[in-house]
């Protein structure tokens, strides 16, 4: 009985997450409108909230079209892979101690990293199997970008793991009580934050789909719900990274008065807000600048951070 | 799991070389093109200090890193020799590297790393460590051989060396894995204990030993596994050849000693026969094919093959004395090869490698002192008394006769006579042929000149009073059996 209840609950979690992703699409458009001094979608429902539903409905009703020149199976798999890799990460993400599906799994952090490497494959296959020049360029860019920024990201996390002595997300969150880890790891936080944006391929790091150069990059050929999966994947990835940032660096569920899970949600929302804000304010760098920056600045900084953390840990002990 | 088991202080020379290699790498990045000498001097200092550190460990024995690191007289003495040889290599080659725009920090760093590999190999007491040390040594050498990227011959040499070296590593690794499967341990001393139960009639052990010996012979350059040797020697920049012909010989002897004596002495009946075959083929191929060579580096490569045959004679004897004589031979050969290639380095200049035998025509008229040193070196290589080369051969033959391998000893002496022919031919060209007008040697390198003089004269002087060196080398092998 409990088994089935769990399955139903997992299913509900999935739906909620998908709902959040859909809502975020709308929210972002409104926020961008606000920041850019225009309106954004405001027709359907109060404040235009219905737009999210309408978009979803539209995507679902469109024809499922596979271009004749695409490599069928891979073309169909790629978007699912992207959405799956983002969704599966939430399995190990705790909202508060005890509120998660597998938050105390001893190597939850590794699972998230492994899934992010799966994400690369979704993007790569989408671009490659489309047999389209723009899509291929997009895929090449995406892969280069993802592997360039995965390294600093992993190294920043490694410093954190060194301090906290745990690979479980719940343990890492607990290490941030009562002092958020950003206090110990300001540099690591910045590195993770920047690499996180690059990993989700959001502006200003969205060179893989840069509309003005590559039409839509790796998902140029996609339409309908297959395109929707890529979209979902992107926004779910955004939520995941934001949640990770608040869990790992911003003290997770700690905070006065309100219950822990609410604090976690609030912090996540705050980080997402910053992401929106960044999108509205920063221009896109050139592609070679992006890669140089990753390898020549972020990676050495991440190694330095790890080195300093290790020295500090050797001198004063870990948390 | 106490920290006491680390005993990391035993590995101080290794740690020093590693740390300084990293320092040289970093310093080289920052000093730039003009102050390259800083990196060079730093490397020399590293080697000198490493020799001092090794010397200070002389006499200590024990295990470190949970029995993976073995400090015994052999470790100290062999380490000292490879460090000294590396120092010689560096001091010979400054001008050569400068003239060919090879005077780069990476060369020194790779050299130091190769040395580190040799040191690890010498002190290894575990199959895993031995393999890693070997790979470190080999990898650095592959890169060094191919370092002259614009040079087609160097690239070819590097590629051949790399592919055949990888094959040799694979053979060795296969042998090691069979040995591991047989004994269930990687630790050489436990392997030695386990082999007592296995007995030397076990056909899997035979298979393992065959692979191990083949791998070691490959790395030694003993025939019939010598195909890479002439091309690699000829194609590589001469200082790299200089290195390849000296340091690895001692290191690979250590590899043999660790695996097949420390670990696998129980299988001596198996590997002895294999080495007999290697000896016969190496002596014939090395000494006969060398006669046909016109290129000095190639000739010396075949001479290496032949000399590895002589070295293996000591191994065949298999006794305490035999192994000690083999080690003595390895050391002596390394210094002879250093002198021989050092002479080539010294005589070369920009656009002229001085590597053909005919390049030495009439050397005695143009460079009488160099010709005299060449005389010593060639006599020593040929084994003419009173040079040290003679004593090395003598020691090996003595040990062989003590172990009742009379026929093999007779065959060896015969081959030594054949070998003398091509060494003397070089002398004939240098001493009696008319000098060519168009030959100009680039011999304006006082450092290399003095090192060459010391190195060559040492071959002669140690030949007259060999006692100390012999005692030193024999002391290294005290108590290995």
């Amino acid at each position, binding site marked *: 009985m409990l088994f089935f209840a769990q399955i139903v609950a997992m299913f509900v979690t999935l739906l909620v997450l998908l709902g959040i992703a859909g809502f975020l699409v709308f929210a972002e458009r409104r926020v961008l409108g606000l920041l850019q001094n225009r309106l954004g979608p405001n027709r359907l429902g109060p404040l235009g909230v219905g737009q999210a539903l309408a978009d979803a409905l539209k995507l679902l009703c469109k024809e499922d079209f596979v271009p004749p020149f695409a490599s069928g199976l891979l073309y169909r798999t790629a978007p699912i892979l992207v959405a799956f890799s983002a969704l599966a990460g939430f399995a190990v993400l705790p909202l508060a101690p005890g509120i998660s599906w597998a938050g105390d799994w001893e190597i939850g952090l590794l699972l998230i990293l492994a899934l992010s490497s*799966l994400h690369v494959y979704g993007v790569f296959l989408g671009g490659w199997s489309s047999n389209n020049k723009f899509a291929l360029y997009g895929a090449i860019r995406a892969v280069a970008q993802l592997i360039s920024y995965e390294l600093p990201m992993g190294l920043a996390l490694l410093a954190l793991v060194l301090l906290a002595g745990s690979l479980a997300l719940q343990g890492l969150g607990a290490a941030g009580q009562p002092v958020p880890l950003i206090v110990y790891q300001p540099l690591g936080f910045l590195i993770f934050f920047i690499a996180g944006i690059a990993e989700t391929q959001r502006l200003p790091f969205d060179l893989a789909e840069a509309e003005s150069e590559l039409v839509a990059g790796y998902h140029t050929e996609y339409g309908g719900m297959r395109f929707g999966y890529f979209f979902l994947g992107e926004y779910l990835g955004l939520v995941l990274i934001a949640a990770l940032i608040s869990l790992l660096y911003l003290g997770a569920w700690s905070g006065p008065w309100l219950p822990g899970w609410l604090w976690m949600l609030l912090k996540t929302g705050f980080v997402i807000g910053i992401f929106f804000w960044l999108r509205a304010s920063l221009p896109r760098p050139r592609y070679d600048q992006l890669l140089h920056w990753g390898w020549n600045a972020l990676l050495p900084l991440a190694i330095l951070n790890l080195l300093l953390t290790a020295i500090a840990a050797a001198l004063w002990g870990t948390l | 799991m106490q920290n006491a088991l680390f005993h990391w202080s035993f590995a101080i020379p290794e740690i020093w070389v590693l740390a300084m290699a990293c320092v040289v790498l970093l310093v080289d990045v920052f000093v730039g093109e003009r102050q390259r000498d800083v990196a060079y001097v730093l490397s020399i200092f590293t080697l000198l200090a490493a020799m001092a550190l090794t010397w200070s460990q002389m006499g200590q024995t024990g295990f470190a890193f949970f029995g993976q690191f073995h400090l015994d007289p052999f470790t100290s003495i062999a380490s000292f020799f490879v460090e000294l040889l590396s120092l010689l290599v560096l001091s010979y080659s400054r001008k050569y590297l400068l003239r060919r725009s090879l005077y780069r920090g990476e060369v020194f760093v790779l050299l130091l790393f190769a040395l580190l590999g040799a040191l690890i190999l010498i002190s290894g007491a575990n199959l895993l460590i031995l393999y890693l040390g070997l790979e470190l040594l080999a990898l650095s050498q592959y890169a060094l051989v191919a*370092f002259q990227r614009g040079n087609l011959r160097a690239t070819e040499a590097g590629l051949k060396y790399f592919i055949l070296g990888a094959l040799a590593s694979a053979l060795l690794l296969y042998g090691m894995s069979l040995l591991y499967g047989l004994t269930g341990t990687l630790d050489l001393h436990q392997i030695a204990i386990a082999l007592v139960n296995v007995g030397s009639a076990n056909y899997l052990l035979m298979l393992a030993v065959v692979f191990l010996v083949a791998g070691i012979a490959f790395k030694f350059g003993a025939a019939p596994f010598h195909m890479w040797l002439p091309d690699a020697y000829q194609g590589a920049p001469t200082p790299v050849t200089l290195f390849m012909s000296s340091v690895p010989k001692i290191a690979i002897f250590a590899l043999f000693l660790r695996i097949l004596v420390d670990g696998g002495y129980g299988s001596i009946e198996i590997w002895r026969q294999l080495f007999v075959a290697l000896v016969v083929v190496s002596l014939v191929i090395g000494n006969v094919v060398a006669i046909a060579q016109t290129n000095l580096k190639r000739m010396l490569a075949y001479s290496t093959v032949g000399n590895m045959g002589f070295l293996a004679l000591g191994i065949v004897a298999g006794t305490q004395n035999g192994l000690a004589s083999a080690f003595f031979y390895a050391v002596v050969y390394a210094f002879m090869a250093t002198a021989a290639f050092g002479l080539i380095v010294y005589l070369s200049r920009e656009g002229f490698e001085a590597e053909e035998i005919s390049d030495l025509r009439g050397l005695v008229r143009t460079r009488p002192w160099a010709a005299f040193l060449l005389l010593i070196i060639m006599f020593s290589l040929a084994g003419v008394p009173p040079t040290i080369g003679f004593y090395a051969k003598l020691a090996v033959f003595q040990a062989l006769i003590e172990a009742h391998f009379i026929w093999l000893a007779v065959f060896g002496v015969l081959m030594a006579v054949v070998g003398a022919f091509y060494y003397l031919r070089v002398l004939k060209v240098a001493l009696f042929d008319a000098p060519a007008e168009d030959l100009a040697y680039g011999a304006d390198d006082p450092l290399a000149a003095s090192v060459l003089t010391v190195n060559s004269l040492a071959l002669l002087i140690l030949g007259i009073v060999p006692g100390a060196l012999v005692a030193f080398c024999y002391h290294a092998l005290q108590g290995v059996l």
Partner: protein
Amino acid sequence: MMLTTTILFYVFSAILLVSALLVITARNPVYSALYLVLAFFNAAALFLLLGAEFLGLILILVYVGAVMVLFLFVVMMLDINLERLKEGFLRYLPLGLAIAIVGVLEMVAVFWTAPIGRVPAPGPIPANADNTRALGELLYTHYLYPFEIAAVILLVAIIAAIALTLRRRPDTKSQAVGKQVAVAVRERLRMVDLRGPKP
């Protein structure tokens, strides 16, 4: 429970073997690489079944996440003619098969005669076993020495690769953005007084 594990084991192993076979038979190198990825995934799943989660996830992280991505990156951009690569296939097949058979026989022989029995079979895994910690202790304490040597080998590989491939090519033309940005007006613009002498 045992049954589920057994069934899963056979499923994963079967997929692993089939995808490994497809790696070498696929006509398109990109597909080959992808099959290899699939094989890695199944190997990782087998590790998970064995209770070695850390190894499983590290396999995915390192091989799927880093190594194979780089492979695909290269393969995707190369124009590999597999037909030419496969030309000598039949000619070398007998030799390859013979070597493979010998290898297999030798491995069988090792397992047969010898005494893997000397290595005690692993006992039941304790409930709170933390294999990450156990691996860490082994690697950084017991096997510290080989671990460090392996690190040095990687360092040498990096140095060698860079030293052998990095070349400055003075003859190519490229923009030096820094110089362009840093340029001052005076360097580009010369003011010339064109007014003639005053009448």
